[in-house]
């Protein structure tokens, strides 16, 4: 396998019988503000073309096992920061040089050329940029031979998948308002585009029409039929009337229709979070918007149903403060914050700019899932519920202590770093999928963890969604009291591995050879 540098290779044998210990009482979640650990002010700035966007891409670009990040600055500088936190230490970052790019709205990491070094797709108002990772956090413009067509639109969303039989990924670019339309900005949404591979390069841009001002896109095998579709969440503020939430079949390329059971749904769509939280293996989605933040339960057979109000995820208005107007949601992401075995939900909130209809002081949400499947707001008590104009974010373990930390990009205010300092959190496992190229990170795989009580946690490895923000980080599972679990992977080609037992509280590099047996190696 190319370029895998495992400093300490250890087969994770399993000896003991699986623990049947009861789950501990849910730990009280706490966070410590490490925003000052950034060497300079990083914020998302600019005029109307940067009211939306403001993403962050998280990737380990120097292969030291610690996640680094690239933050969009809009009209202000976009910067790369390398992680200088020690393992389990206080989170800190140092700036690292990267090409100066203008009008950046967001970014997503992905290994384009299968060399197992992550590349960076940078979204911009204007031509987008594809940066090739060279190692040691150095990035260069993608070679001309890659055939990357940058476009000229105002790009605000992205997703990628590896289609069957292809050696390179398929990239989807979602665009916002067509700024060249003299009748705009309303009802003037631009087309979206697909870049499909042609051998080891990209072919011509394929329009995805109609476009409805896409602020989030996600390739997901949401029906678990082995065929990922492209979900597009669209902003009604600009499409106004004749738009909708979209789902695209990739082959042949066509939107889902009402006739096949895809209902017309209109949102001020800003972000997509996707995760199976009901335990049936089918990913639910959260679609952020103005007012209600919609959690849709995946009922199977292509049916999504709005969760009951009592689930506690609608978060329509600020949960504290003295501003009672509706919220504005942006990035949403699931993650088990207290490792109790139940996924929690972070939603970045903030007024677009000066919309009197919506709260000006709009706190971010940290919704902690309870044993009964409902969610309880902890944004206020943990301090992460700040009221800046938050946009993109990442829920990721920044210091390898097994606790998910938080990066939040703010418009007109400094980026926030929150270190998860939850005491008595549960056990955890982080799965770093690797596969033989070209899809070196096994995008499209499903990872299943079987807990001692028989519950199965499922995560799909995707690139896209959120709000202009993406992560190439190990998949994090909270496990409660489980000291050992079983693990299997449904690889993107459909091969299902055997179950493998492993201890917990590890970052595991998981790969395969010709057999269905997983290869597990502990990362230091």
């Amino acid at each position, binding site marked *: 396998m190319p370029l895998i540098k495992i400093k300490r290779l250890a087969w994770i044998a399993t000896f003991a019988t699986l623990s049947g210990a009861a789950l501990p009482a849910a730990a009280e979640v706490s966070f410590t503000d490490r925003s000052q650990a950034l060497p300079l002010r990083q914020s998302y700035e600019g*005029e109307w073309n940067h*009211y939306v966007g403001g993403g962050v891409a998280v990737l380990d670009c120097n292969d030291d096992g610690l996640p680094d990040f690239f933050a969009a600055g809009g009209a202000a500088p976009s910067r790369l920061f390398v992680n200088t936190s020690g393992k389990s230490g206080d989170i800190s970052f140092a700036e690292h040089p990267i090409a100066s790019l203008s009008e950046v709205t967001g970014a997503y990491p992905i290994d384009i050329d299968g060399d197992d070094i992550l590349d960076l797709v940078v979204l911009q108002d204007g031509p987008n940029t594809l940066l090739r990772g060279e190692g040691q956090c150095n990035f260069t413009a993608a070679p001309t031979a890659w055939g990357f067509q940058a476009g000229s639109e105002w790009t605000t969303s992205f997703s990628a998948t590896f289609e069957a039989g292809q050696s390179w990924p398929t990239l989807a670019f979602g665009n916002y308002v067509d700024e060249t339309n003299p*009748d*705009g900005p309303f*009802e003037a949404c631009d087309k979206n585009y697909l870049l499909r591979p042609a051998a080891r390069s990209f072919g011509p841009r394929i329009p995805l029409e109609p476009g409805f001002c896409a602020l989030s896109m996600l390739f997901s095998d949401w029906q678990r039929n082995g065929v990922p579709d492209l979900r597009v969440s669209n902003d009604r503020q600009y499409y106004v009337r004749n738009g909708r939430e979209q789902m695209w079949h990739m082959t042949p390329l066509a939107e889902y229709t009402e006739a096949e059971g895809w209902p017309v749904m209109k949102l001020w769509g800003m972000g997509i979070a996707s995760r199976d939280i009901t335990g049936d293996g089918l990913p639910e989605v959260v679609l952020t918007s103005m007012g*209600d933040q919609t959690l849709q339960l995946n009922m199977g057979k292509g049916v999504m149903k709005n969760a009951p109000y009592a689930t506690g995820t609608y978060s*329509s208005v600020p949960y504290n403060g003295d501003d*009672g107007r509706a919220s504005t949601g942006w990035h949403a992401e699931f993650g088990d914050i207290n490792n109790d075995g139940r996924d929690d939900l972070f939603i970045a909130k903030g007024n677009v700019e000066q919309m009197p209809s919506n709260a*000006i002081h709009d706190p971010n949400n940290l919704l902690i899932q309870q044993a009964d499947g409902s969610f309880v707001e902890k944004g206020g008590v943990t301090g992460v519920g700040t009221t800046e104009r938050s946009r993109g974010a990442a829920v990721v373990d920044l210091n390898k202590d097994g606790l998910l930390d938080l990066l939040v990009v703010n418009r007109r205010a400094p980026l926030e770093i929150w270190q998860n300092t939850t005491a008595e959190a549960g056990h955890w496992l982080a799965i770093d999928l690797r596969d033989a190229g070209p899809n070196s990170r096994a995008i499209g795989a499903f990872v299943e963890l079987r807990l001692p009580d028989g519950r199965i946690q499922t995560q799909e490895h995707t690139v896209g969604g959120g709000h202009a923000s993406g992560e190439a980080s190990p998949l994090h599972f909270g496990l409660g009291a489980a000291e050992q679990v079983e693990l299997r992977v449904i690889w993107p080609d459909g091969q299902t591995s055997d179950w493998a037992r492993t201890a917990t509280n590890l970052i595991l590099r998981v790969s395969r050879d010709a057999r269905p047996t997983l290869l597990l190696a502990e990362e230091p």
Partner: protein
Amino acid sequence: MRLRFVTPLLVLTATMALAEAPAIAPLSDADFPQFSTAEIALGQALFWDRELSGNRGISCATCHHPRFGTSDGVSLDIGEGGIGLGPDRKADPKNYPEQRIPRNAPALWNVGAHGFTVLFADGRIEADSSRAGGFRTPLEDEMVTGFASLLSAQTMFPVLSSDEMAGHYEENEISTLVRQGRITGPDGAWEAIARRIAAIPAYAADFKSVYPEISAGRPIHFTDISNAVAAYMTFDFRSDGSPYDAFLRGEAALSDQAEAGRVLFYGKAGCGNCHSGALLTDMTYHAMGDPQIGPGKAERFERHQRDTGRMRVSNNPADAYAFRTPSLRNVTLTAPYGHAGSYRDLSDYLRHHMAPGSGLADYDLSHAILPAMEVGKPDLAPGEEASNYAAIANAIKAPAISLSEPEFNSIMAFLKALEDPLAVAGGRMGIPDSVPSGLPIDR
């Protein structure tokens, strides 16, 4: 006297109640800021000029007209997209309105008084010592500086409302900026309106003559416009010439029936607990169980038809369905009544108001005056999901009051004594003959 024998305790209680009844100081010049005649005249022109609205079809006076007691004579008006005035107003088929304005247009009597510290039925503009600058506005810390008073700050917001004055989507440069969320700054909606006004030579000259800084070369900002409009409203809609004012000044007694009503108002009926002071409002919020009609205080991205009143501003559940106590000055001229104008008749409203929530169960729209238009959401929303009458009823804290029919009539007579002949005549200045834009005037 029916009670022949009274216990000493009751006598004591009654004496204390009389002693505690606050002496109400009459309104005087000291209660109102003073402005130059030129500033007032400039403000009058702007108040009546449709140029301030995005599509140039509606002025402040369209919904705050002296013919209707500085309100509009309907429950829930059509703002942008309406033609005609008062109960005759109807949807313009060429620019069909999207929905009714969700609240009854408030009367403007004495809004310029220093004591008028809460504006709008939910107080989203109000004096607030806990905030920088001493007030709150919907823009919070984004709010511009340069407005001279709370009333001036208030004036800056109806022009931003798509359903009231701005218009929708890309219909005009103002509505486009508003929908984009661009309000302040050189590229914002307020400056765009100011540029319109500055482009009219007569206004440019008038602003120079009124404001020395503009004469010295500073461009006209929207705050200058709002300051002038506030000066006009303060002057023209000052109302302290009612029989009750004469009574407060010790100049004349009320009629016997009105006097009986006054005593009830401040005594047994308890009206004066909230309708207090010379402005007849405590400038705070009470849930009185008025029926909710119309689209509700819901944004386009919300499906409900509720209006939770103050809670939508304060985010405090204790404020649910509470609305600012309205001033009762010239109340006989300002029908319909309630935050949504759900009652066209004052005595009907008062009977419901004395037994808060009593009218909810069998309320019907015949009590309202609604300009004809096709509406997307029904005017009387059905069920829990919509306007939530159960929650409205549950929020009521005020006790029911029982009055005899003569007592009720006395209170009505007292309310009639709050009517100022000058208000009946339409204010001090009347309707201007023309405005600098040359646009038509609502008469």
